[in-house]
């Protein structure tokens, strides 16, 4: 169980939704539940991120001002890179996101080892071969 409190999760959700609003057929970070089950999935994959994420969010939450929290986050390069990794990394795990992008994940498709025959038959290499060697002769 993650040590991230509901308050920190809500702040993460709010900031992530500013980064990833809904649109173009894509859910927002809040609609995708980036601060909930997707965050849990991120931290299962990357437990090393939990402590630095809490350290990042706690002082921002203490501000009590989401707009100021966003301003400070975006001004802190290492912090915003960590935040983006968690937020976008979680968002991309939502099945609706891949579906909307027509992206099935890194699914396999065996190579065709005979593709080169078509390249040769199509004459793609002919001009290269016709120009001849381009390497530089060196003294023996």
């Amino acid at each position, binding site marked *: 169980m993650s040590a991230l409190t509901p308050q920190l999760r809500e702040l993460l959700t709010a900031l992530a939704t*500013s*980064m*990833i*609003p809904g*649109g*173009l057929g*894509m859910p927002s970070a809040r609609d995708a539940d980036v601060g909930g089950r997707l965050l849990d*999935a*991120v931290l*299962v*994959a*990357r437990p*090393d991120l939990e402590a630095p994420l809490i350290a990042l969010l706690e002082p921002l939450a203490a501000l009590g001002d989401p707009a100021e929290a966003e301003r400070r986050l*975006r001004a802190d390069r290492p912090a*915003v*890179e960590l935040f*983006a*990794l968690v937020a*976008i*990394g979680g968002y*991309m*795990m939502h099945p609706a996101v891949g579906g909307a*992008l*027509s*992206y099935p*994940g*890194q*699914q*396999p*498709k*065996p*190579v*065709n*080892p*005979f*593709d*080169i025959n078509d*390249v040769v038959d199509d004459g*793609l*290499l002919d*001009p*290269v*071969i016709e*120009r*001849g*060697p*381009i*390497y*530089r*002769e*060196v*003294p023996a």
Partner: protein
Amino acid sequence: MPAERPDVLIVGAGPSGAVAAKRFHEAGMSVLVLEQGDWPDYGRARAGFPDFELIARKEWNWDPNVRANGGDYAVDCSDSDVTALMYNGVGGSAVSYAAHWERFLPSDFRVRTLDGVADDWPVSYAEMEPYYVEVEKQFAVSGLDGDTCLPEGEGPPMPPVPLNVVGRMGAKALNQLGWHWWPASNAIATTDYGRLHACVQRAACPFGCPTGAKASPDRTHWPDLVAGGVELVTGASVLRITTDAAGLADGVEWIDRDGREHAQAASTVVVCANGVGTPRLLLASGLANSSGLVGRRLMMHPFANAIGIFDEDLESWRGPMGQYLHSLQFYETDRARGFVRGAKWNLMPSGAPLSMVLPGLWGDELVWGAEFHEQLRARLGRSLIWSVICEDLPDPSNRVTLGGASGPGGMPGAALHYRTSENSERMMAFHLDRLSEVLDVMGAKEKKLSSGIRDSGWHLMGTACMGEDPASSVVDRDGRAHDVPNLFVYDASVFPTSAGVNPTATVAANALRCADALVRDRNRQPVPA
């Protein structure tokens, strides 16, 4: 238990160590290999799963300071323009390379003679050629013979990876411009080959190939070598090389993963610990440095890329990664360009989405707000990457020293001191201008050109330079330390120059050539009493 005193003790189980161990073993010599890391855990190779990129950014991260596995040591890059990247474990940095397999060109061995800069190698392309042929078989290289950038000769054992839509677009554009290209060589199986399986194009080569198609020594060499009797000890960090009263290397002191220190005798010591790890060990041992050049002349191939974004769906999240094709049109020196030497280009798919919207290879800006979806849709599957590998000329002030946090046994870390030269800056700018032309011909609707990318020090070379003169080099033409006649270095540390192509083919071929020399001369080889 390791042999009491093996004929050869190799430090490091990467490509050079693997090739050398195979050669020694085949010659009947006893071989002990000490590897500081562990076997790669392909259970963490997650291509095809939703958490693929998140896990890849930790488990398969190129930066040892981020990955922080058991075999990693601290590398302080705060005084370097470029971050040193490597994999410390069985297979070495080939575990995380993109498998681009490039022979050096004949001119690369004669830079001083041809261009009046840097140094010639003490060996020629003709001498290296049979070793290239042999290691291409060992590393399951796929490609097409007849490339006009190389002398005629035997090519790779398997046909090349398919060009796919992306490669054909690139080939047609280069044809239109009248520029060189050729289907690229990769250490990626395109048919089942030995222990490897044919590639299934998950675009995961550097991030843990889950298919077992990419050649790295943990798959191509070590299983058979270990089964055949080579002793490979993992979790074994070498602290120093020891010498006897006659000044010969007589073994090493090493520390295991539980913190126990060991002394291991050996007749011969071969260091294969990469361009940072090798000088770190030599400096920590106080050996082989009468020239003062151990750690100096660090070269890292200044890196640039040109990303093209297109309207049409290229399915470019898929493919070998891996290179579809390469071009060496502007490889040789033309001083009218304002710099010497040149660079290789390669064309790759752009892969999975996370990197496209995070700062890094796609640029430093953070995608935020309404543009997030626009950018993601525009880039995913509709983009491709041209990369530029620039020749890096040796400069003694670019160097590796001991530094950074110490590890187990008090072993110091390494520190890099490196500045990108003006020659390299001009070279990157020229090549990006040419690639911008290529992207225009290809019909890109948007171009992202980046040079001097910091996290790009994949190729670590030159820090124990090979040469005939002990005053200006660390090892001789066969990798033997001038100062210690039974201490050898076989990795890219020995490169006098870097060429402008990926180095693993030459690392492996040169290691085999050097190992061959040691086998040939072993009856004359001095060893400790």
